[in-house]
């Protein structure tokens, strides 16, 4: 009795904090001048989702929670359910998770676990299962914890490397088993037709996302990075068709901005690439700080944005035998998650992005506790210095406490790029 009362109290205070946090992030985002009008859809979306506690989408369909972008959500859609990515960026949930998670764990995992703990009784009933790929240690270890909280968990076994043919075969088999288990969970057989439709929807989203990406890197910047995070983050939970429609509208508006020669920010603003641990709403602290300080994030290499939608499924034969392994390939082969070893593809991708987008500086975020990103930092930094591109490495978490100190560092970094630029001219 006392326990459940305490739980209710914690949930109430957490949801209150969450709403405040979300409102604050949205306030900072909308405070920028010249926000595209069609961004209103996304601002409203976040407003309503985080208004009171965590709202899961409700449309009568079964919900399947995913804890990583490595989960092939096409299969979930084809099985008639709605995938929702649970990875949380909320400090309120991070604090809730702090009650039972190690102090040095990654804030993303801690917040996600906190959210699932605080909302245990409602989410348990709403989620048909939670899919966790065996990526980093902390996500792997949360499987048992979630089972102890009585959540149904589906483990998606992922190899620790993607180089060998054996790893590829293993992953393909793993995804096949996942397809079999998810159709059992959702009570609907996956057909080639349904799977094809799901693949097409994601392709459509990927196509739109690429166009948006293109617009973001224009030499007349027509949109700021802070809005892109909102757009890509919302793919975690929004209805894909609605999402595509809204993004299509946004692209149309940006296109007209482009032809009108409009610039959303000073054209000389340092062009930055953002990489490392994923910024997830409401924790857009660092990306927002960067743009408040006069930088412009023209590209990102993170699993909450670019990696989510850039790659595309290709199959040769429209039958499940070819489609399911093709989907598996899309989630493993191009993956640049640092939980994979070797991960030379990530460095290569960053370098390519730096070159093709005329990037002048890189902001590297690592959540304290996210060892894979922290460890890769050095190599990336060395590579970039050989390329003559400065990098700012920031180790941070979800708490707003380091905001002041961070903004000083970010401002100094951006100022130094401006000085370099002036010297070059």
């Amino acid at each position, binding site marked *: 009795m006392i326990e459940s009362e305490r739980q209710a109290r914690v949930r109430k205070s957490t949801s209150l904090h969450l709403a405040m946090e979300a409102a604050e992030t949205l306030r900072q985002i909308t405070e920028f001048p010249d926000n595209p009008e069609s961004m209103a859809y996304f601002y409203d979306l976040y407003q309503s989702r985080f208004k009171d506690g965590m709202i899961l989408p409700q449309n009568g369909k079964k919900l399947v929670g995913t804890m990583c972008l490595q989960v092939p959500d096409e299969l979930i859609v084809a099985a008639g359910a709605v995938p929702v990515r649970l990875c949380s960026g909320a400090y309120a949930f991070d604090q809730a998770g702090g009650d039972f998670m190690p102090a040095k764990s990654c804030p993303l995992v801690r917040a996600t676990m906190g959210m699932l703990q605080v909302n245990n009784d409602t989410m348990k009933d709403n989620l048909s299962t939670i899919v966790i790929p065996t990526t980093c240690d902390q996500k792997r270890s949360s499987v048992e914890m979630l089972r102890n909280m009585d959540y149904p968990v589906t483990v998606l076994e992922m190899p620790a490397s993607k180089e060998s043919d054996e790893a590829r075969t293993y992953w393909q088999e793993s995804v096949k088993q996942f397809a079999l288990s998810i159709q059992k969970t959702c009570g609907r057989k996956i057909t080639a037709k349904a799977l094809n439709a799901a693949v097409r929807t994601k392709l459509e989203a990927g196509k739109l996302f690429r166009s948006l990406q293109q617009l973001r890197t224009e030499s007349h910047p027509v949109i700021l990075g802070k809005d892109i995070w909102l757009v890509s983050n919302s793919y975690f939970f929004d209805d894909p068709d609605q999402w595509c429609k809204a993004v299509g509208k946004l692209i149309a508006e940006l296109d007209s901005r482009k032809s009108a020669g409009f610039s959303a920010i000073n054209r000389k603003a340092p062009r930055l690439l953002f990489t490392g641990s994923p910024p997830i709403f409401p924790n857009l602290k660092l990306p927002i700080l960067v743009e408040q300080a006069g930088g412009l994030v023209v590209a990102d290499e993170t699993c909450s944005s670019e990696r989510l939608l850039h*790659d595309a499924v290709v199959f040769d034969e429209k*039958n499940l035998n070819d489609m399911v392994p093709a989907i598996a390939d899309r989630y493993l*082969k191009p993956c640049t998650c640092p939980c994979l070893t070797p991960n030379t593809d990530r460095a290569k991708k960053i370098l390519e992005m730096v070159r093709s987008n005329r990037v002048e500086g890189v902001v590297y975020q690592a959540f304290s506790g996210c060892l894979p990103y922290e460890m890769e930092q050095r190599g990336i930094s060395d590579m970039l210095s050989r390329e003559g591109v400065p990098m700012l490495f920031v180790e941070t978490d979800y708490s707003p406490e380091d905001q002041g100190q961070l903004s000083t560092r970010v401002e100094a970094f951006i100022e130094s790029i401006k000085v370099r630029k002036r010297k070059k001219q």
Partner: protein
Amino acid sequence: MSSIRKFLNNSDINRFRFYFQLVAFGLLVYGGYLSINIGDQLPTFACVFDDKRGGSCYLMGFQHQMTFPYARLFSGAGIGILIGLLTFVGFFIIFNKAWCGFACPLGAIQDWLTMLRCKMGIYYSSYSEPVFKRLSTIKYILLALLILIPMGIGNSFFGLPTLNHDFGVPFCMICPGRTLLPLFNGDFSQLAIDFSSKTKMVFSGLGLGITGMFLAGAFAKKRFFCLFCPMSALHYIFSRASLLRLTKDGEKCTRCGNCYRVCDVGIRAIADDLEHINIVKDDCMMCLKCVSACPEDGCLKASFLGMPVYESTAEGFFRRRLKEDD
């Protein structure tokens, strides 16, 4: 110019290839009806046993020439052989291995078998990559044999007795082109075991067996026979000199593996090789499916005399992928 390029890059190469193969098949198998003869040194299986053909496969003449004794081989007659080889190379370097992907009648038959399998909803069988690698050396062995066996007719190796003339065109005897292509002109005479001599009996028996394996293999696995094709091995020797090139810009590659996924002959290097610019491997048939499956701008490129003719673009990729069912 840029609009032509855009049109080409947005096009669906698979559909184009399907119709091109039909035309090429008609030309090479039925060309004789229109008195067409493209040449006698074609780098593709325009089978000599089909008397209505529109050109001839080089391998038949080549094997025949190899039966010459050394004395004749290195005399004036050698010039004729050299000219034959040069004509072959001349034909070949224009289209490179696209001869396999776009013109070869045996390749077309295999592709039609694959289409039939897909229509019937039957799954393909797959093999692991190492097995593939091992199998693909067979074509070099066949190439060596189709030179060495005829040589053994005109010359004695290490003092051994020479072979009789039934060994004359050993590869033709086992080539499924000999048994299958005349069928399209109603000639069933090759579908028999020749009992006139022991050698012929063994070769024609082997030929029938291989024909069966060709049909069954190609039904289960895309372009199964191409892995063993000595013509493909001979091509590869001259591939680098070709005017048509398939190149890769490793910097733009994300190693997403889409190209490897759709590759009928399972060339892994197309996805994983980031260093080499020329990406044509010995098994490649330049069907250009990889280019059409690549979503990165300018990563894979087919160019003729340095002019890009088909290039991977994100726009073309999404157009092709999202169009398919409409």
